[in-house]
Protein backbone atom coordinates (compact mmCIF):
# COMPACT_ATOMS: atom_id res chain seq x y z
CA UNK A 1 0.00 0.00 0.00
CA UNK A 2 1.08 3.51 -0.73
CA UNK A 3 2.29 5.59 2.16
CA UNK A 4 1.35 9.03 0.78
CA UNK A 5 -2.18 8.85 2.19
CA UNK A 6 -1.03 8.20 5.74
CA UNK A 7 1.48 11.03 6.14
CA UNK A 8 -0.85 13.94 5.35
CA UNK A 9 -4.25 14.41 6.93
CA UNK A 10 -6.79 12.97 4.52
CA UNK A 11 -9.22 15.33 2.84
CA UNK A 12 -11.55 12.43 2.18
CA UNK A 13 -11.60 9.70 4.77
CA UNK A 14 -13.80 6.69 4.06
CA UNK A 15 -13.84 4.17 6.89
CA UNK A 16 -15.39 0.71 6.87
CA UNK A 17 -18.35 1.73 4.76
CA UNK A 18 -20.81 -1.07 4.04
CA UNK A 19 -24.01 -0.95 2.09
CA UNK A 20 -26.61 -3.44 0.90
CA UNK A 21 -29.40 -3.16 -1.61
CA UNK A 22 -31.79 -5.67 -0.12
CA UNK A 23 -29.96 -8.99 0.02
CA UNK A 24 -27.10 -7.85 -2.21
CA UNK A 25 -24.14 -6.34 -0.40
CA UNK A 26 -22.60 -3.75 -2.72
CA UNK A 27 -20.00 -2.28 -0.38
CA UNK A 28 -18.05 -4.41 2.08
CA UNK A 29 -16.26 -2.41 4.70
CA UNK A 30 -14.60 -0.08 2.23
CA UNK A 31 -11.86 2.19 3.55
CA UNK A 32 -10.13 4.78 1.43
CA UNK A 33 -8.24 8.00 2.04
CA UNK A 34 -7.64 10.78 -0.43
CA UNK A 35 -5.17 13.51 0.48
CA UNK A 36 -5.52 17.11 -0.64
CA UNK A 37 -4.36 17.49 -4.24
CA UNK A 38 -4.35 13.76 -4.84
CA UNK A 39 -5.97 12.12 -7.86
CA UNK A 40 -7.27 8.68 -6.95
CA UNK A 41 -8.78 6.41 -9.56
CA UNK A 42 -11.12 3.55 -8.79
CA UNK A 43 -11.12 0.66 -11.24
CA UNK A 44 -12.77 -2.72 -11.18
CA UNK A 45 -15.27 -4.93 -12.95
CA UNK A 46 -18.84 -3.68 -13.31
CA UNK A 47 -20.89 -4.43 -10.23
CA UNK A 48 -17.86 -4.07 -7.98
CA UNK A 49 -19.35 -1.07 -6.17
CA UNK A 50 -17.20 1.69 -7.67
CA UNK A 51 -20.04 3.97 -8.63
CA UNK A 52 -21.96 3.28 -5.42
CA UNK A 53 -18.89 4.26 -3.41
CA UNK A 54 -18.60 7.52 -5.34
CA UNK A 55 -22.30 8.25 -4.81
CA UNK A 56 -21.95 7.66 -1.09
CA UNK A 57 -19.22 10.29 -0.88
CA UNK A 58 -21.69 13.10 -1.67
CA UNK A 59 -24.57 11.18 -0.09
CA UNK A 60 -26.56 10.65 -3.26
CA UNK A 61 -26.75 7.21 -1.69
CA UNK A 62 -26.89 6.50 2.00
CA UNK A 63 -24.83 3.68 3.51
CA UNK A 64 -25.57 1.23 6.28
CA UNK A 65 -22.48 1.52 8.44
CA UNK A 66 -19.06 3.12 8.60
CA UNK A 67 -18.21 6.77 8.19
CA UNK A 68 -17.30 9.15 5.39
CA UNK A 69 -15.61 12.40 6.32
CA UNK A 70 -14.57 15.30 4.15
CA UNK A 71 -12.18 17.71 5.82
CA UNK A 72 -13.03 16.09 9.14
CA UNK A 73 -16.79 16.54 8.75
CA UNK A 74 -19.14 13.59 8.57
CA UNK A 75 -20.96 13.77 5.22
CA UNK A 76 -24.47 12.40 5.54
CA UNK A 77 -24.99 11.97 9.25
CA UNK A 78 -24.80 14.34 12.18
CA UNK A 79 -21.44 14.69 13.86
CA UNK A 80 -22.85 13.33 17.13
CA UNK A 81 -22.11 9.86 15.77
CA UNK A 82 -25.70 8.71 16.20
CA UNK A 83 -26.23 8.01 12.51
CA UNK A 84 -28.95 10.59 12.48
CA UNK A 85 -29.37 11.90 8.96
CA UNK A 86 -28.45 15.52 8.46
CA UNK A 87 -31.20 18.01 7.74
CA UNK A 88 -32.01 18.80 4.12
CA UNK A 89 -30.30 22.18 4.45
CA UNK A 90 -27.17 20.65 6.00
CA UNK A 91 -27.00 17.94 3.36
CA UNK A 92 -27.29 20.53 0.60
CA UNK A 93 -24.51 22.56 2.18
CA UNK A 94 -22.28 19.47 2.47
CA UNK A 95 -22.95 18.47 -1.13
CA UNK A 96 -21.98 21.93 -2.34
CA UNK A 97 -18.45 21.12 -1.06
CA UNK A 98 -18.11 18.15 -3.39
CA UNK A 99 -18.39 18.47 -7.15
CA UNK A 100 -19.75 15.61 -9.20
CA UNK A 101 -19.56 14.89 -12.91
CA UNK A 102 -21.89 12.20 -14.24
CA UNK A 103 -21.59 9.55 -16.91
CA UNK A 104 -24.75 10.84 -18.60
CA UNK A 105 -23.75 14.52 -18.20
CA UNK A 106 -27.10 15.45 -16.58
CA UNK A 107 -26.95 19.03 -17.78
CA UNK A 108 -30.12 20.99 -17.13
CA UNK A 109 -31.71 21.02 -20.61
CA UNK A 110 -33.73 24.20 -20.03
CA UNK A 111 -30.66 26.27 -19.17
CA UNK A 112 -27.81 27.44 -21.39
CA UNK A 113 -24.25 26.30 -20.81
CA UNK A 114 -23.61 29.43 -18.75
CA UNK A 115 -26.98 29.03 -17.02
CA UNK A 116 -26.07 25.50 -15.95
CA UNK A 117 -22.94 26.80 -14.26
CA UNK A 118 -24.59 29.91 -12.82
CA UNK A 119 -27.47 28.12 -11.06
CA UNK A 120 -25.41 26.82 -8.15
CA UNK A 121 -23.36 30.01 -7.97
CA UNK A 122 -26.51 32.11 -7.71
CA UNK A 123 -28.71 29.95 -5.49
CA UNK A 124 -26.15 28.13 -3.34
CA UNK A 125 -23.22 30.53 -3.24
CA UNK A 126 -25.44 33.62 -3.32
CA UNK A 127 -23.43 35.38 -6.02
CA UNK A 128 -24.89 38.22 -8.05
CA UNK A 129 -26.01 37.61 -11.62
CA UNK A 130 -23.01 39.51 -13.01
CA UNK A 131 -20.51 37.77 -10.75
CA UNK A 132 -21.93 34.34 -11.51
CA UNK A 133 -21.87 35.10 -15.22
CA UNK A 134 -18.23 36.11 -15.13
CA UNK A 135 -17.26 32.98 -13.17
CA UNK A 136 -19.24 30.85 -15.65
CA UNK A 137 -17.47 32.51 -18.55
CA UNK A 138 -14.11 31.97 -16.90
CA UNK A 139 -14.72 28.23 -16.52
CA UNK A 140 -16.26 27.85 -19.96
CA UNK A 141 -13.04 29.40 -21.25
CA UNK A 142 -11.02 26.91 -19.23
CA UNK A 143 -12.82 23.98 -20.85
CA UNK A 144 -12.55 25.57 -24.30
CA UNK A 145 -16.20 26.53 -24.69
CA UNK A 146 -16.18 30.29 -24.24
CA UNK A 147 -18.07 30.63 -27.52
CA UNK A 148 -20.87 28.28 -26.39
CA UNK A 149 -21.94 30.16 -23.26
CA UNK A 150 -25.43 30.82 -24.60
CA UNK A 151 -25.99 27.45 -26.24
CA UNK A 152 -28.51 25.00 -24.85
CA UNK A 153 -27.20 21.52 -24.00
CA UNK A 154 -29.16 20.03 -26.92
CA UNK A 155 -27.06 22.20 -29.25
CA UNK A 156 -23.76 20.79 -27.95
CA UNK A 157 -21.91 17.58 -28.77
CA UNK A 158 -21.48 14.95 -26.07
CA UNK A 159 -17.90 16.00 -25.42
CA UNK A 160 -18.93 19.63 -25.17
CA UNK A 161 -21.78 18.78 -22.81
CA UNK A 162 -19.46 16.85 -20.56
CA UNK A 163 -16.99 19.73 -20.50
CA UNK A 164 -19.84 22.00 -19.40
CA UNK A 165 -20.64 19.35 -16.77
CA UNK A 166 -17.09 19.61 -15.47
CA UNK A 167 -17.18 23.40 -15.53
CA UNK A 168 -20.48 23.34 -13.60
CA UNK A 169 -18.89 21.19 -10.90
CA UNK A 170 -15.58 23.03 -10.51
CA UNK A 171 -17.11 26.52 -10.66
CA UNK A 172 -18.52 25.82 -7.19
CA UNK A 173 -14.93 25.47 -5.95
CA UNK A 174 -15.53 22.08 -4.37
CA UNK A 175 -12.99 20.56 -2.00
CA UNK A 176 -13.06 17.37 -4.00
CA UNK A 177 -14.28 16.47 -7.46
CA UNK A 178 -16.02 13.13 -8.06
CA UNK A 179 -15.92 11.83 -11.64
CA UNK A 180 -18.22 8.92 -12.39
CA UNK A 181 -17.19 7.21 -15.66
CA UNK A 182 -17.39 10.56 -17.33
CA UNK A 183 -16.21 9.37 -20.74
CA UNK A 184 -18.20 6.13 -20.92
CA UNK A 185 -21.15 7.66 -22.78
CA UNK A 186 -18.96 9.46 -25.30
CA UNK A 187 -18.03 8.55 -28.85
CA UNK A 188 -14.36 7.50 -28.85
CA UNK A 189 -13.22 10.56 -30.79
CA UNK A 190 -14.68 12.85 -28.10
CA UNK A 191 -13.01 11.19 -25.12
CA UNK A 192 -9.69 13.01 -25.57
CA UNK A 193 -11.07 16.53 -25.22
CA UNK A 194 -12.76 15.63 -21.92
CA UNK A 195 -9.72 13.87 -20.47
CA UNK A 196 -7.55 16.84 -21.44
CA UNK A 197 -9.73 19.05 -19.24
CA UNK A 198 -9.48 16.62 -16.32
CA UNK A 199 -5.73 16.49 -16.73
CA UNK A 200 -5.40 20.25 -16.60
CA UNK A 201 -7.51 20.35 -13.43
CA UNK A 202 -5.25 17.73 -11.87
CA UNK A 203 -2.24 19.83 -12.74
CA UNK A 204 -3.87 22.75 -10.93
CA UNK A 205 -4.01 20.64 -7.78
CA UNK A 206 -7.72 19.74 -7.78
CA UNK A 207 -8.39 16.77 -5.50
CA UNK A 208 -10.20 14.10 -7.45
CA UNK A 209 -11.74 10.71 -6.95
CA UNK A 210 -12.69 9.13 -10.23
CA UNK A 211 -14.16 5.94 -11.56
CA UNK A 212 -12.98 5.20 -15.07
CA UNK A 213 -12.40 2.49 -17.63
CA UNK A 214 -9.72 4.56 -19.36
CA UNK A 215 -6.71 2.61 -18.10
CA UNK A 216 -4.15 4.66 -19.99
CA UNK A 217 -5.58 7.81 -18.48
CA UNK A 218 -5.71 6.27 -15.01
CA UNK A 219 -2.06 5.30 -15.36
CA UNK A 220 -0.94 8.77 -16.46
CA UNK A 221 -3.11 11.00 -14.33
CA UNK A 222 -3.56 9.29 -10.98
CA UNK A 223 -1.43 9.39 -7.87
CA UNK A 224 -2.96 6.11 -6.75
CA UNK A 225 -5.28 3.48 -8.14
CA UNK A 226 -7.83 1.58 -6.09
CA UNK A 227 -8.95 -1.78 -7.44
CA UNK A 228 -12.38 -2.83 -6.25
CA UNK A 229 -13.90 -6.29 -6.55
CA UNK A 230 -17.13 -7.65 -5.07
CA UNK A 231 -17.80 -4.48 -3.12
CA UNK A 232 -14.45 -4.41 -1.35
CA UNK A 233 -11.09 -2.75 -1.92
CA UNK A 234 -8.90 -5.50 -3.31
CA UNK A 235 -5.73 -3.51 -4.00
CA UNK A 236 -4.45 0.05 -3.63
CA UNK A 237 -1.23 1.50 -4.91
CA UNK A 238 0.58 3.69 -7.38
CA UNK A 239 -0.46 3.09 -11.02
CA UNK A 240 2.75 1.30 -11.95
CA UNK A 241 2.26 -1.19 -9.17
CA UNK A 242 -1.45 -1.82 -9.75
CA UNK A 243 -1.36 -1.98 -13.53
CA UNK A 244 1.74 -4.19 -13.67
CA UNK A 245 1.02 -7.36 -15.57
CA UNK A 246 2.88 -9.47 -13.02
CA UNK A 247 0.72 -8.50 -10.02
CA UNK A 248 0.17 -11.27 -7.50
CA UNK A 249 -3.43 -10.26 -6.85
CA UNK A 250 -5.35 -12.98 -8.67
CA UNK A 251 -8.51 -10.97 -9.18
CA UNK A 252 -6.66 -7.90 -10.38
CA UNK A 253 -4.66 -10.00 -12.81
CA UNK A 254 -7.84 -11.53 -14.24
CA UNK A 255 -9.46 -8.10 -14.51
CA UNK A 256 -6.46 -6.58 -16.28
CA UNK A 257 -6.11 -9.56 -18.59
CA UNK A 258 -9.78 -9.37 -19.57
CA UNK A 259 -9.52 -5.66 -19.93
CA UNK A 260 -6.50 -5.90 -22.23
CA UNK A 261 -8.17 -8.62 -24.27
CA UNK A 262 -11.28 -6.49 -24.85
CA UNK A 263 -9.55 -3.18 -25.43
CA UNK A 264 -6.60 -3.97 -27.61
Amino acid at each position, binding site marked *: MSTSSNDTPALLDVRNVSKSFGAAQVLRSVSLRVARGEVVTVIGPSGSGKTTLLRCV*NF*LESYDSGSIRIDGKEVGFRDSGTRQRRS*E*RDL*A*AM*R*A*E*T*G*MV*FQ*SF*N*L*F*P*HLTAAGNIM*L*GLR*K*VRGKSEAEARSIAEHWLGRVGLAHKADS*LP*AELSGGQQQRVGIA*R*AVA*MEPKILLLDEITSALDPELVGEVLAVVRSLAEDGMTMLMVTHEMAFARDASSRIVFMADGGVSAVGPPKEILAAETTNERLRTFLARFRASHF
Partner: protein
Amino acid sequence: MLTQIAYALPFLAQGFALTLWVSLLVVVLSLIAGVLLGVGLVYGPAPLRWAVRIFSDTIRGIPILVLMFFVYYGLPAIGLHLPSFWAAVLALTLFKTAQVIEYLRGAVGSIPKGQSEAAMAIGLTFRQRLAYVIFPQAFRRFLPPWINGVTDAVKGSALVSLLGITDLMQAINQVIGRTYEAMPLYILGALIYFAVNYALSLASRRLERRFSFIRE
Protein backbone atom coordinates in the same frame (compact mmCIF):
# COMPACT_ATOMS: atom_id res chain seq x y z
CA MET B 1 -87.39 35.76 -30.78
CA LEU B 2 -84.23 37.83 -31.13
CA THR B 3 -85.74 40.56 -29.04
CA GLN B 4 -86.49 38.03 -26.33
CA ILE B 5 -82.92 36.82 -26.35
CA ALA B 6 -81.64 40.39 -26.36
CA TYR B 7 -83.91 41.07 -23.41
CA ALA B 8 -82.45 38.04 -21.59
CA LEU B 9 -78.82 38.92 -22.29
CA PRO B 10 -78.04 40.88 -19.10
CA PHE B 11 -79.48 38.00 -17.10
CA LEU B 12 -77.39 35.49 -19.05
CA ALA B 13 -74.34 37.68 -18.53
CA GLN B 14 -74.82 37.42 -14.78
CA GLY B 15 -75.02 33.64 -15.06
CA PHE B 16 -71.93 33.64 -17.27
CA ALA B 17 -70.04 35.71 -14.72
CA LEU B 18 -70.93 33.14 -12.06
CA THR B 19 -69.79 30.29 -14.32
CA LEU B 20 -66.46 32.03 -14.77
CA TRP B 21 -66.19 32.74 -11.03
CA VAL B 22 -66.88 29.10 -10.11
CA SER B 23 -64.45 27.87 -12.78
CA LEU B 24 -61.75 30.27 -11.64
CA LEU B 25 -62.11 29.27 -7.99
CA VAL B 26 -62.03 25.57 -8.85
CA VAL B 27 -59.06 25.90 -11.19
CA VAL B 28 -56.95 27.97 -8.77
CA LEU B 29 -57.78 25.98 -5.64
CA SER B 30 -57.30 22.61 -7.35
CA LEU B 31 -54.02 23.77 -8.85
CA ILE B 32 -52.63 24.69 -5.44
CA ALA B 33 -53.95 21.57 -3.68
CA GLY B 34 -53.10 19.26 -6.57
CA VAL B 35 -49.51 20.45 -6.91
CA LEU B 36 -48.89 20.18 -3.16
CA LEU B 37 -50.44 16.72 -2.91
CA GLY B 38 -48.79 15.65 -6.17
CA VAL B 39 -45.38 16.58 -4.76
CA GLY B 40 -46.34 14.56 -1.68
CA LEU B 41 -47.24 11.62 -3.89
CA VAL B 42 -43.92 11.70 -5.75
CA TYR B 43 -41.49 12.68 -2.99
CA GLY B 44 -43.31 12.17 0.29
CA PRO B 45 -42.81 9.47 2.93
CA ALA B 46 -44.78 6.25 2.48
CA PRO B 47 -47.82 7.12 4.66
CA LEU B 48 -48.34 10.41 2.80
CA ARG B 49 -47.91 8.68 -0.56
CA TRP B 50 -50.56 6.12 0.40
CA ALA B 51 -52.97 8.75 1.65
CA VAL B 52 -52.69 10.78 -1.55
CA ARG B 53 -52.96 7.67 -3.70
CA ILE B 54 -56.16 6.57 -1.93
CA PHE B 55 -57.63 10.08 -2.13
CA SER B 56 -56.89 10.39 -5.83
CA ASP B 57 -58.13 6.93 -6.79
CA THR B 58 -61.30 7.25 -4.75
CA ILE B 59 -62.25 10.68 -6.04
CA ARG B 60 -61.53 9.78 -9.64
CA GLY B 61 -63.67 6.69 -9.30
CA ILE B 62 -66.79 8.64 -8.31
CA PRO B 63 -69.00 10.46 -10.85
CA ILE B 64 -68.62 14.17 -10.28
CA LEU B 65 -72.39 14.57 -9.89
CA VAL B 66 -72.48 11.98 -7.10
CA LEU B 67 -69.60 13.80 -5.42
CA MET B 68 -71.48 17.08 -5.59
CA PHE B 69 -74.71 15.66 -4.16
CA PHE B 70 -72.69 13.89 -1.50
CA VAL B 71 -71.05 17.14 -0.38
CA TYR B 72 -74.32 19.14 -0.44
CA TYR B 73 -76.84 16.58 0.81
CA GLY B 74 -74.57 14.10 2.56
CA LEU B 75 -72.19 16.17 4.65
CA PRO B 76 -74.95 17.86 6.73
CA ALA B 77 -75.43 14.40 8.28
CA ILE B 78 -72.06 14.86 9.99
CA GLY B 79 -72.84 18.45 10.87
CA LEU B 80 -71.18 20.16 7.92
CA HIS B 81 -73.73 22.49 6.30
CA LEU B 82 -72.25 24.23 3.29
CA PRO B 83 -74.18 26.80 1.26
CA SER B 84 -74.95 25.39 -2.19
CA PHE B 85 -72.35 27.62 -3.85
CA TRP B 86 -69.48 26.44 -1.65
CA ALA B 87 -70.66 22.84 -1.66
CA ALA B 88 -70.48 22.95 -5.46
CA VAL B 89 -67.07 24.62 -5.47
CA LEU B 90 -65.74 22.11 -2.93
CA ALA B 91 -67.00 19.11 -4.89
CA LEU B 92 -65.62 20.36 -8.19
CA THR B 93 -62.32 21.29 -6.51
CA LEU B 94 -61.92 17.83 -4.98
CA PHE B 95 -62.56 16.27 -8.36
CA LYS B 96 -60.12 18.55 -10.16
CA THR B 97 -57.48 18.21 -7.44
CA ALA B 98 -57.36 14.46 -8.03
CA GLN B 99 -56.72 15.13 -11.70
CA VAL B 100 -54.04 17.75 -11.06
CA ILE B 101 -52.26 15.25 -8.78
CA GLU B 102 -52.05 12.80 -11.66
CA TYR B 103 -50.91 15.43 -14.19
CA LEU B 104 -48.17 16.48 -11.80
CA ARG B 105 -47.08 12.94 -11.07
CA GLY B 106 -46.88 12.20 -14.79
CA ALA B 107 -45.00 15.40 -15.60
CA VAL B 108 -42.50 15.16 -12.74
CA GLY B 109 -42.08 11.43 -13.25
CA SER B 110 -40.99 12.02 -16.84
CA ILE B 111 -37.91 13.98 -15.70
CA PRO B 112 -34.86 11.68 -15.59
CA LYS B 113 -33.53 10.92 -12.11
CA GLY B 114 -30.16 12.34 -13.12
CA GLN B 115 -31.66 15.82 -13.12
CA SER B 116 -32.47 15.65 -9.42
CA GLU B 117 -29.07 14.15 -8.71
CA ALA B 118 -27.21 16.83 -10.64
CA ALA B 119 -29.22 19.45 -8.77
CA MET B 120 -28.40 17.79 -5.45
CA ALA B 121 -24.75 17.55 -6.38
CA ILE B 122 -24.39 21.33 -6.74
CA GLY B 123 -25.97 21.77 -3.33
CA LEU B 124 -29.54 22.82 -4.13
CA THR B 125 -32.09 22.12 -1.40
CA PHE B 126 -35.30 20.17 -2.13
CA ARG B 127 -37.34 23.32 -2.76
CA GLN B 128 -34.64 24.83 -4.95
CA ARG B 129 -34.42 21.62 -6.96
CA LEU B 130 -38.15 21.71 -7.57
CA ALA B 131 -38.22 25.41 -8.36
CA TYR B 132 -35.20 25.70 -10.64
CA VAL B 133 -34.66 22.25 -12.12
CA ILE B 134 -37.71 19.96 -11.92
CA PHE B 135 -40.72 22.24 -12.35
CA PRO B 136 -39.34 24.27 -15.28
CA GLN B 137 -38.83 21.01 -17.16
CA ALA B 138 -42.05 19.34 -15.99
CA PHE B 139 -44.08 22.42 -16.89
CA ARG B 140 -44.17 21.62 -20.57
CA ARG B 141 -45.61 18.17 -19.94
CA PHE B 142 -47.98 19.40 -17.26
CA LEU B 143 -49.48 22.16 -19.37
CA PRO B 144 -51.42 20.34 -22.15
CA PRO B 145 -53.39 17.98 -19.89
CA TRP B 146 -53.89 20.72 -17.34
CA ILE B 147 -55.36 23.20 -19.87
CA ASN B 148 -57.57 20.35 -21.04
CA GLY B 149 -58.62 19.99 -17.44
CA VAL B 150 -59.36 23.71 -17.22
CA THR B 151 -61.77 23.46 -20.15
CA ASP B 152 -63.33 20.45 -18.41
CA ALA B 153 -63.75 22.58 -15.31
CA VAL B 154 -65.56 25.29 -17.28
CA LYS B 155 -67.84 22.69 -18.84
CA GLY B 156 -68.27 20.76 -15.59
CA SER B 157 -69.25 23.93 -13.76
CA ALA B 158 -72.63 23.64 -15.53
CA LEU B 159 -73.41 20.91 -12.98
CA VAL B 160 -73.68 23.51 -10.23
CA SER B 161 -77.03 24.46 -11.75
CA LEU B 162 -78.33 21.19 -10.30
CA LEU B 163 -77.83 22.64 -6.82
CA GLY B 164 -79.99 25.60 -7.87
CA ILE B 165 -77.10 27.98 -8.42
CA THR B 166 -77.76 30.49 -11.18
CA ASP B 167 -74.75 29.98 -13.42
CA LEU B 168 -74.88 30.30 -17.21
CA MET B 169 -76.62 26.94 -17.56
CA GLN B 170 -79.26 27.72 -14.96
CA ALA B 171 -79.78 31.20 -16.41
CA ILE B 172 -80.40 29.68 -19.82
CA ASN B 173 -82.89 27.22 -18.37
CA GLN B 174 -84.73 30.03 -16.60
CA VAL B 175 -84.95 32.14 -19.74
CA ILE B 176 -86.25 29.11 -21.63
CA GLY B 177 -88.80 28.65 -18.86
CA ARG B 178 -90.14 32.12 -19.61
CA THR B 179 -89.84 32.20 -23.40
CA TYR B 180 -90.23 28.54 -24.45
CA GLU B 181 -87.46 29.18 -27.01
CA ALA B 182 -85.22 26.24 -26.15
CA MET B 183 -83.25 25.79 -29.35
CA PRO B 184 -81.82 29.31 -29.89
CA LEU B 185 -80.95 29.67 -26.23
CA TYR B 186 -79.15 26.35 -25.99
CA ILE B 187 -77.26 27.23 -29.17
CA LEU B 188 -76.33 30.57 -27.65
CA GLY B 189 -75.20 28.83 -24.47
CA ALA B 190 -73.18 26.28 -26.42
CA LEU B 191 -71.50 29.10 -28.35
CA ILE B 192 -70.53 30.90 -25.16
CA TYR B 193 -69.02 27.76 -23.59
CA PHE B 194 -67.29 26.99 -26.86
CA ALA B 195 -65.84 30.50 -27.15
CA VAL B 196 -64.30 30.28 -23.67
CA ASN B 197 -62.83 26.84 -24.19
CA TYR B 198 -61.58 27.51 -27.68
CA ALA B 199 -59.78 30.60 -26.41
CA LEU B 200 -58.22 28.45 -23.69
CA SER B 201 -56.93 25.82 -26.09
CA LEU B 202 -55.50 28.51 -28.37
CA ALA B 203 -53.67 29.95 -25.39
CA SER B 204 -52.47 26.48 -24.49
CA ARG B 205 -51.06 25.87 -27.94
CA ARG B 206 -49.18 29.16 -27.85
CA LEU B 207 -47.75 28.36 -24.43
CA GLU B 208 -46.69 24.89 -25.52
CA ARG B 209 -44.84 26.33 -28.48
CA ARG B 210 -43.12 28.84 -26.25
CA PHE B 211 -41.74 25.98 -24.11
CA SER B 212 -41.00 23.56 -26.91
CA PHE B 213 -37.31 24.50 -26.88
CA ILE B 214 -36.86 22.12 -23.99
CA ARG B 215 -35.91 18.93 -25.72
CA GLU B 216 -35.51 15.54 -24.14
